């Protein structure tokens, strides 16, 4: 069972399985969260499979482009999708040691998210309508506050686990040699805030809003239809899934299976499914209880996250005289 070829083969098969999980799980999880949200609001809500139907419908429909749309409008959605999908491939789901494991560096994943954000900003500015610009200007503000928090969380993780490789971090935290730490708790709180910002969920943004002036990410996509919109929506689903998977891999790496032992995969899949379901449910329940903040209040929230992430680093220094 230990020959390198076999391990590489298993890594590849696990990667294929990971892709399947992404393809099915990402839309389904969003559909589930929408359904649950509707139930909490006293509506029957769309069935969880509605998301798949929406995607196929968008795929079949014709694309309506503005007269002055350049090829940026057609290519940027693909870049948004490709960057989000690449990031999704780098974040382990049910197994560690996928073929993409050595590449799953946290800073690189953040870079890929930035790339996807940049492409969607370019797409939004292409036609020159004012909602696109509005969305982009808000993205700038949020990114300025979210990015440093994320980096400090990585700083903490690197101090704890000695690397920014996600596989390595998850493996160390899974085996539990590091124990429970206050710093990790603070980092978790900070990272959840960043995740909410990046996913555009409440209280920072409201993904189901229909009022354009309150939009964050959605304002950037108003000009798109048909296949371009399908790619953008698919990318948003992947990012939603990836952020939750990232939280699960770092802060709840229980039951995650080594890719080299296929017999543990079912358990890994099961526990991963449970974790994602739990996270999505928690997110929806949390959202049901909060109202959307004014955009200029968001920096305060992210400022708190920044303090938390700074504290996480400080506690590590103080607690063990890190050398």
């Amino acid at each position, binding site marked *: 069972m230990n020959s390198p070829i076999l391990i590489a083969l298993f890594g590849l098969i696990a990667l294929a399985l990971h892709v399947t999980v992404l393809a099915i799980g990402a839309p389904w999880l969003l559909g589930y969260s929408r359904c649950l949200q509707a139930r909490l609001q006293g509506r029957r809500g769309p069935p969880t499979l509605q998301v798949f139907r929406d995607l196929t419908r968008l795929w079949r429909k014709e694309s309506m482009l503005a007269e002055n749309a350049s090829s940026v409008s057609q290519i940027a959605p693909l870049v948004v999708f490709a960057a989000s999908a690449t990031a999704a491939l780098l974040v382990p789901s049910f197994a560690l040691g996928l073929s993409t494991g050595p590449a799953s*560096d946290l800073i690189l994943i953040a870079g890929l998210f930035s790339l996807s954000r940049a492409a969607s900003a370019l797409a939004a500015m292409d036609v*020159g309508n004012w909602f696109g610009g509005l969305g982009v200007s808000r993205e700038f503000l949020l990114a300025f506050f979210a990015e440093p928090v994320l980096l400090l969380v990585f700083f903490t993780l690197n101090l704890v686990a000695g690397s920014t490789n996600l596989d390595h971090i998850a493996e160390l935290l899974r085996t539990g040699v590091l124990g429970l730490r206050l710093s990790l708790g603070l980092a978790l709180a900070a990272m959840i805030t960043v995740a909410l910002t990046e996913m555009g969920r409440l209280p920072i943004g409201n993904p189901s809003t229909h009022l354009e002036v309150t939009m964050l990410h959605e304002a950037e996509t108003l000009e798109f239809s048909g296949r371009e919109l399908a790619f953008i929506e698919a990318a948003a689903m992947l990012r939603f899934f990836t952020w939750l998977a990232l939280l699960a891999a770092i802060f709840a790496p229980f039951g995650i299976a080594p890719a080299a032992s296929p017999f543990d995969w079912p358990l890994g899949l099961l526990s991963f499914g449970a974790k994602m379901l739990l996270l999505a449910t928690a997110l929806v329940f949390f959202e049901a209880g909060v109202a959307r903040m004014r955009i200029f209040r968001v920096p305060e929230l992210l400022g708190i996250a920044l303090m938390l992430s700074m504290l996480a680093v400080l506690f590590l220094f103080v607690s063990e005289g890190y050398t």
Partner: protein
Amino acid sequence: MIYPLLAIFAALLGVGVTESFIPSLASLLRTMTAALCAMGLAIAVIFLLFRLTAAGLHLPFGPPGLGINLALDGLSAFFLLPVFLSGAAGLWAARTEHLSGGPLIPVFIAGMVLSVLAADGFTLFVGFETMSTASWLLVLSYGEPTAAVKAGRLYMTMAVVGAMALLGAMAVGFGVGGDFTAWRAHPPHGAAAAGLLALLLIGAGSKAGLPPLHGWLPIAHPAAPAPVSAMMSGAMTKVALYVLIRFLFDLAGHNPPLWWGVPLLVLGAMGALLGAARANFETDIKSVLASSTIENIGIIAASLGLSLIARAAHLPSLAAMALGAALLHVLGHSIAKTLMFLVTGAVDHAAGTRRMDRLGGLVHMMPITTLCAFCGAASLAALPPMIGFASVWMVFQSLITAPRLGSFVLQMLMPVMALLLACGGALALSAMLRLVGATFLGRPRAVRTAGAHETDFATSLLFMGLAVLCLLLGLVPGVVLRLANPTLTQLVGADLTGQFGLLAITTTTSGASYTALPVAILLGAILLGAILILRRHPAVVRRGRAWDCGYAAPPMFMPFGDTSTQYGATSLTEPLGRSLGVPLFDWQMSTTIPEPGEIGPARFGVVWYDPVLRFLHAPVLRTRDWLADRAELIQRLTIRRTLGMMVLALVVLLMIVALLEQSQ
């Protein structure tokens, strides 16, 4: 290898002189200069690739007893890369342009080459000042006279302050006379070392754009013609960094105290934040780019400081990582910034303005230039897989492993510095997106802009070459690290061999790796797959009026709609201005909306200023004017008094010489 470089140096001066006498040959001579620079680039690459032995050269003229000393080692060869690359690209882009200061460009490059090759303080100073003066004259020679003179005066003042500080640094650190070999044998200690560091941070830092003397860059760099701006930002700032590295890493000895790198680290991180923040509020493309230069120089300086600290703490592998990151960023920034300034030149030429609030929609008229600008901007914004990301990745990796350094204060410093750099990174991304968005996307904001045209074929080839270089070196950053290896061995006693390859950069300090090529292939494969599927099953695409959430169609007399309803350069960063601009730049927005029925336009305006300019540069300028007034007294003296002054000056100088003789 130093002789061919000397020949290129002489040829550059010769070309400059020839052009000033026979201006009709300008076009031919510029092409020749570009070729000379390309040759220099090839020589530097060969020198680094085959790890040739360092060579020195003593020329028997120059100051008595000293002569002119030149030397070519790994460090100087590496810094010849940005100089020659930026020079070749700039001159190729300017080959047909009419520039009144044309003959000065080869002299400017020659000055940079001389500063990098110099092996004694006098030669270094001569090269540095040739570079300063030539670029100052180029700033003066271009554009609207009053603006040029204002920029030129600010630049000259900063250059003079820098020059005096540089002279002072050399005098304090190493005394008078002796070449670098002699200086290396007697590195300064204690107060002398601290003085050297402080004066050097002013002398070289002001030229590089290191805080607090960075405020002049976004005013002076844009005032020159685009190719010269490209060289000033892409190459001249790097020469200033070279001087910093040469003194701090090499000449000041290998055993400085632990805190030696801290000022550089702190100032660099502050520069990264302040430069990137300012880039979000400037409205002239070139000023945005010059502000982004401050940011990038800050990243490099922070990495250099970290490397110095790590070397002093006897962690050679961390020191090598940080220095390697700095050198990679030097080259990456130089390529991307040269590209972006040249693109700005093309935009200025085609659309008649560099103001973003008059541009827009150039993607339709200049598709190739736009694509290349996207690549350059992505590299400056540190997006994967461009070269900018590779170096920033390395900087962050070295920064987050740096708490192993020991001392608690230093440990505490690292997360704060990481925080500043991360803020700078996010701001750089928004600045670059704003730049390309307002310039190339959307609708033209002025009729003149709608009449823009694509740049000529040869120039677009150059743009494509530079853009591909940004991408290729980003995919395989190991190539540059390999060129940097001789320098790393020479300066920190360890190199990065084994830590980079075709597929990845790996840190031995933390075991993380950046797999640029595989991830880029993955990304490209997904992108290509999506495109192929779209090709196989083409969608029905219909064109119509922009949806714009149902707003009414523009009237007939507005062919591009009411372009003032579109988000512009100022409005794109309005939320950032409100939260970040207010504390940093005293950013203030004013809107005037007339009452219903009132006839009058609605107005929207933003004012801000850089406090550095007001509180630091302005007093320097006032001191300059005061001194100039006093100095004018000399011109009104009678002949008797003038002669008296000369005798007095001679006596004072002789006394200084006598004192120096005595002390030695």
